[in-house]
């Protein structure tokens, strides 16, 4: 099974099994060193350094480790060491998953299926807000079967994922879904029902939809379901359909005694121990492990609880229902697990990361604006700024114009950006659409250092990304190679977009990389900075020189306040 979670579990176990307990920092250190987790393009120590922040909720490697920790907790592969959530220990089941993950594919599959079917609520392991009593994956499989072999993901939310076996009736739940299918004719109507359902949960429909991702991934991973398109609610929808394995699993496990926490708590101590052994070794036996050495003991256990189970096999995953102490004690008595000693956790010291995004170059304006032969469109822009200046400050003018262009397409944005550079006293030309020789969107022409410009309108991308930077580099290479205009190697290539990049560190790194590798400079200018410069030009007769632009590199900024 080529599955990252098994590789992760295997790596964690191999590296951390000798510790009495481990924490998220241990996990992230292990996974980055194993290259199973990265941050900012790095594995290893550099991944840890770059992700380290004061606010741990923004530490990507720690949070990634936390994600794995909680999924593995849900699957019964790890549990808390003590009373609080962390630190953690591996469970006996988790150790077997880790060992199997190193072997060929089928080995881990069966035990994984047992763990998925073992997910149950309520339990003593996970603190959740929802109160439904449910063995969720059995209910999902059963509901697909009862809904004529097909179920849509939103029906799953409204059906088995909301079913409480203590308060709801199975037949009513199935009947409700069937009624939707019979009475709702269009997808729009169904969507409205789903939105109402989400509203009643105080959740957004998207969030409710997102809740289906993990369960669907898990049952697909188990091979219990497959996708099938079916006409539902007036549309062809991707539905879940039971595979032969799903059907046979449902049939088989439906005959088992489904032991829940509330029943377990009512049992006398000897029967509790018996149930733990039957549940745990049942999982192992069904996954193809040799448990014959415990046969005599299990036969006794089976007889001890026969009146409770009615002679049926037990469906009970102890590590996913109760705290590990009682389970581990039983395993110790059987010689399968050592009693816990006292060992120290090894702290990991991680360096603080350097915030590269603060490294922004200011665009300086000069005082002398050369009168240019401006186009009609440029003059319209100037008049608009002048009109706004009658009752607005310069900052306000910029904000108004910035908002005005919020939904601008290439058709308007590219020519207006070009004209704005002209207003600044430069000789800027917009490329003709379809001119493959001019890969750039615009170019500032100069005798010695022409500057190509890659423009991204707000409808193409709101925040500039590495895409624009790459294209700016390409523009420069083409200009240097084909020489339609004169330029120098050192002159910058501009990338102009509506807003600054979301991930400034990523863009800044790429620009530095281009500079180091190729000795070519890319400068990123955001639209607000351009507007600031234009407003300064119109109101204060400021300009920007070609040499100033040519010297730019990296993330840039032009701020009105600083010029007053």
């Amino acid at each position, binding site marked *: 099974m080529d599955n990252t979670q098994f590789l992760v579990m295997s790596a964690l176990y191999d590296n951390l099994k000798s510790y009495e307990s481990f924490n998220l920092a241990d996990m992230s250190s292990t996974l980055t060193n194993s290259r199973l987790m990265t941050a900012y393009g790095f594995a290893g120590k550099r991944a840890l350094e770059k992700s380290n922040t004061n606010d741990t909720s923004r530490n990507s490697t720690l949070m990634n480790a936390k994600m794995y920790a909680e999924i593995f907790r849900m699957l019964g592969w790890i549990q808390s060491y003590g009373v609080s959530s962390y630190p953690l220990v591996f469970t006996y089941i988790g150790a077997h998953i880790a060992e199997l993950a190193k072997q060929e594919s089928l080995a881990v599959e069966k035990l994984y299926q047992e763990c998925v079917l073992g997910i149950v609520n309520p339990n003593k392991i996970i603190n959740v807000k929802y109160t439904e009593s449910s063995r969720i994956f059995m209910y999902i499989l059963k509901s697909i079967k009862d809904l004529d072999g097909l179920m849509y993901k939103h029906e799953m939310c409204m059906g088995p994922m909301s079913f409480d076996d203590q308060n709801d009736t199975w037949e009513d739940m199935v009947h409700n879904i069937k009624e939707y299918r019979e009475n709702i004719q269009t997808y729009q109507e169904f969507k409205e029902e789903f939105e109402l359902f989400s509203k009643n949960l105080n959740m957004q429909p998207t969030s409710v939809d997102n809740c289906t991702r993990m369960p669907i991934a898990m049952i697909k991973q188990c091979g219990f379901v497959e996708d099938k398109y079916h006409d539902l609610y007036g549309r062809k929808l991707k539905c879940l359909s039971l595979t032969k394995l799903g059907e046979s699993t449902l049939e088989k496990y439906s005959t088992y005694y489904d032991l829940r926490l509330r029943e377990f708590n009512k049992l006398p101590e000897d029967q509790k121990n018996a149930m733990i052994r039957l549940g745990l070794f049942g999982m192992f036996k069904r996954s193809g492990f040799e448990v014959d050495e415990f046969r005599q003991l299990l036969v006794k256990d089976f007889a001890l609880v026969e009146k409770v189970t009615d002679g049926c096999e037990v469906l009970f995953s102890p590590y996913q229902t109760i705290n590990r102490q009682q389970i581990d004690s039983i395993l110790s008595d059987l010689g399968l697990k050592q009693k816990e000693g006292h060992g120290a956790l090894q702290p990991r010291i991680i360096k603080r990361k350097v915030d590269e995004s603060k490294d922004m170059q200011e665009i300086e304006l000069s005082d002398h604006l050369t009168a240019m032969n401006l186009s009609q469109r440029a003059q319209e822009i100037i008049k608009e700024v002048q009109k706004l200046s009658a009752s607005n400050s310069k900052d306000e003018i910029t904000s108004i114009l910035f908002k005005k262009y919020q939904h601008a397409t290439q058709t308007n944005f590219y020519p207006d950006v070009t004209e704005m550079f002209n207003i600044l006293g430069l000789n800027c030309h917009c490329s003709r659409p379809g001119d493959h020789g001019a890969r750039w969107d615009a170019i500032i022409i100069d005798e010695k250092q022409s500057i190509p410009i890659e423009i991204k309108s707000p409808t193409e991308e709101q925040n500039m990304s590495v895409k624009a930077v790459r294209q700016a580099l390409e523009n420069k290479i083409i200009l240097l190679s084909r020489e339609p205009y004169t330029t120098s190697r050192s002159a910058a290539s501009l990338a102009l977009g509506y807003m600054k990049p979301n991930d400034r560190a990523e863009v800044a790194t790429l620009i530095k990389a281009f500079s180091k*590798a190729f000795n070519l400079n890319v400068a990123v200018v955001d639209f607000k900075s351009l507007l600031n410069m234009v407003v300064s030009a119109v109101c204060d007769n400021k300009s920007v020189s070609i040499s100033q632009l040519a010297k730019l590199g990296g993330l840039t900024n032009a701020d009105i306040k600083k010029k007053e």
Partner: protein
Amino acid sequence: MRILKRKNDASTRLLIPGAQIDHISLGAQNLWHISGVTVPASCMKCIYPLCIRKKESSNLPENLSDFSYDQSYFVCPSQAINLGKDGFPTIDQERCISCGLCVFNCPYASLNFDENYKISVNKKINNFICEENRTPATSEKQILQSSTATSVNKIGSHVNEKELDNYVRAVYSNIKAYDWFNCPEYANRLVARLLEFSGYDVFCSRIGDVYNRMDAIIISDKGNISPMEIEFGMDALETIRALLDDIAILDFNFNCKAKSSKPIVVFLEMPNVRQGYWQDINDIHKVLGIKIYTLTLGVILSLTALRIKINVNADASYLSTDEYRIRHYALESILESVDGVLEPRK
């Protein structure tokens, strides 16, 4: 902690004492030659099945110690081959693209193509094979069995020269037919596994790693580290941009000098001559002094099937507006009928 043992239902196979395979003839029916006797090749139920699970990669060089890569150990890019309960490999024909990686990898040549390039496993027993109950993988016998197997001499090619067109066409047809193959990880793994036959170490990026944008890095036996982009779609220009990004990041983050880079692009089909891709190759060479090498999957498949070592940085793979056609002695007059593999479509 004592780990429980698993029950082993399937028995493993060994050669009888004294039997040694002299060599294996590859062809439509792969044949073992043992002491003058010829028998059809048969699956040996290897404890470490090389048709499923690849050998461990070499370690990355020191300067790439922080480089993250795909840890998948599957040979098959689409994971179509798995062990059945009987211990033999089974192939999911709905996921198999007929690339033949499992066929090429099997040390016993026990997997074959049929006339439609469907792959099957030959399970027949012969007088030289004995069955025995599986013992734990640490058993010396199984380790010896596996290590001996990898050194058996093979003669011939996996696909007949005259059949190369049909073979490549079958793989291409499957790739295009399966929507799910559009996922980059499959294409990347396919190319990576094929190039490993030619002695390259190829490390594909981890899927989902948004900060590592490169498809793969390829390390030659001389230690040269270069990025590789694999593009089975139509976006040739974006591929060039991605490659420049890769070269720069390898230089900046991992100290792999851009000037020493010999980057490679692998297409499904060559970009059209009118596409800006070819002019860009010229521009990049002129301005940056970097040659970008262009290959297609069809060429890689063909040479691997013919068991000819590929040199990804050969002159024959440096294509530009001056020369669009991949020139390789083994492929002359072959693959002509498969459009876009040796040169752009006319």
